[in-house]
């Protein structure tokens, strides 16, 4: 039993489900009705359509499609008010996902330099050639590890890799010990 429809995350899930053809008939009708009444929801729907088109291996996973879908929706007679045309700028694929990675990566690198900002006690533990480079680097700028962490945290590639990035952080934090 799906939760009742409402704006917000549930609705997003609903739209995804609609795209995947996983909704029951009445749910489909309800979702489409909600779509027609909300500009925000329609923009989500639009983005979903891009995915849908891709899933169906149709050409043109691009702004053109989005615009066409938008105008198709706008022309729908049941639409109450014309939605403002939204230009789809290039967007980072999944910054939100990357957030997890971001934090994780940061942690990993902290091990390179002790938590304090003093660049002391860096060169410890067995080190192969590669690690020595790293440690030398870390000694030169204690902020390197902080930046590495921040870099990971904000890397949009995390969208695809998801947890994998955080993994890198966690793993890396053990380095240099």
């Amino acid at each position: 039993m799906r939760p009742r429809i409402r704006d917000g995350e549930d609705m997003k899930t609903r739209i995804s489900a609609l795209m995947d053809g996983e909704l029951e008939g009445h749910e489909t009708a309800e979702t489409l009705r909600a779509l027609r009444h909300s500009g925000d929801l329609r923009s989500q729907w639009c983005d979903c359509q891009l995915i849908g088109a891709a899933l169906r291996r149709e050409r043109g996973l691009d702004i053109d499609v989005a615009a066409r879908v938008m105008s198709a929706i706008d022309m729908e007679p049941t639409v109450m008010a014309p939605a403002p045309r939204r230009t789809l700028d290039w967007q980072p694929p999944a910054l939100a996902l990357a957030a997890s990675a971001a934090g994780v990566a940061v942690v990993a690198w902290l091990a390179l330099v002790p938590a304090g900002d003093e660049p002391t006690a860096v060169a410890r533990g067995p080190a192969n050639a590669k690690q020595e480079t790293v440690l030398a680097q870390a000694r030169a700028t204690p902020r390197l590890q902080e930046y590495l962490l921040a870099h990971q945290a904000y890397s949009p590639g995390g969208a695809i890799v998801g947890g994998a990035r955080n993994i890198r952080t966690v793993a890396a934090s053990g380095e240099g010990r």
Partner: protein
Amino acid sequence: MAVARSSWLALAIMLLAPLPAASPALAEDGLVLLQRMAQGSRQLTYSGTFVYRSSGRVDTSRIAHSLRDGLEMERIEALDGSPREVLRAGSEVKCFFPEEKLVIIENRARQRGFPSLLPAGLGSLPEHYVIRRGELGRVAGMKSRAVHLEPRDALRYGREFWMDDASGLLLKANLIDERGETLESFAFIQVKIGGPLERGALTPRFDSERVRVQQVRATEIKPDDMGWVFRTVLPGFRTVSAMRRQTAPENPESLHVVLSDGLASISVFIEPGASGGEGEAVSTVGPVNVYRRQVAEHRLMVMGEVPALAVKRLGDGIERRRK
């Protein structure tokens, strides 16, 4: 999926968006898989153990992930070496270092919502990578599908992904350099997809009392306002974020600009400070190349999991904006 429903949907889409007929290209095929993967890693509930390998090191960690009421929750715990734990709830990431008695909290300056997760940004990937749908295989006992991405130029690395054929969850990922060597690799060795998670799977194990808390502050700014210009354009890389960040009130603010081609990303950090005497240099940390350069009274650091050529080229083109 019921046949009736999907054909209804197909019809609806045809009516809404009359698309030109085209033969399905291989790249799009691979792109579809990537999109499934991107969605899967966010929306699925899963838990398992994975191995991370880079620069001759192997680390094992445990992960649990779920999406509850629209909030992504995730916990990763290192199983080898010193204990480390990363906990994420939505936009807030907490990193626990029990041995150092330190917790670092990073709260993202701006959280993008659902639509930006979607693949508007992935659409341009085929311009910079040859994307190939690969063979079926097995990872962590699951039937998986490979996707190969080969860079079209020398400014990015190649990737190999394996995803669970049924759910789309990424099971294995490799980063491949220009000589075909694997720079880093992560792979599940055991995974359970779908809930419910074990009790406490998302609860931190380390208590956060009597620890030092370092809270990172980041404020989004407009790229035009940052006072710096990037003269060199790396094909496919676009600025996705620009912010001022500060780790503690006594530390100077630095500038952080993130560029991405949709898959690989490069960070540029600019902080006030005189040269430490060292010249320009590229060094590596795991799979990440770091290029450092002094520009007048500022230190530049350009880093990313991209070839050294890319960080150097971008870094050499950065200048102060003339007033």
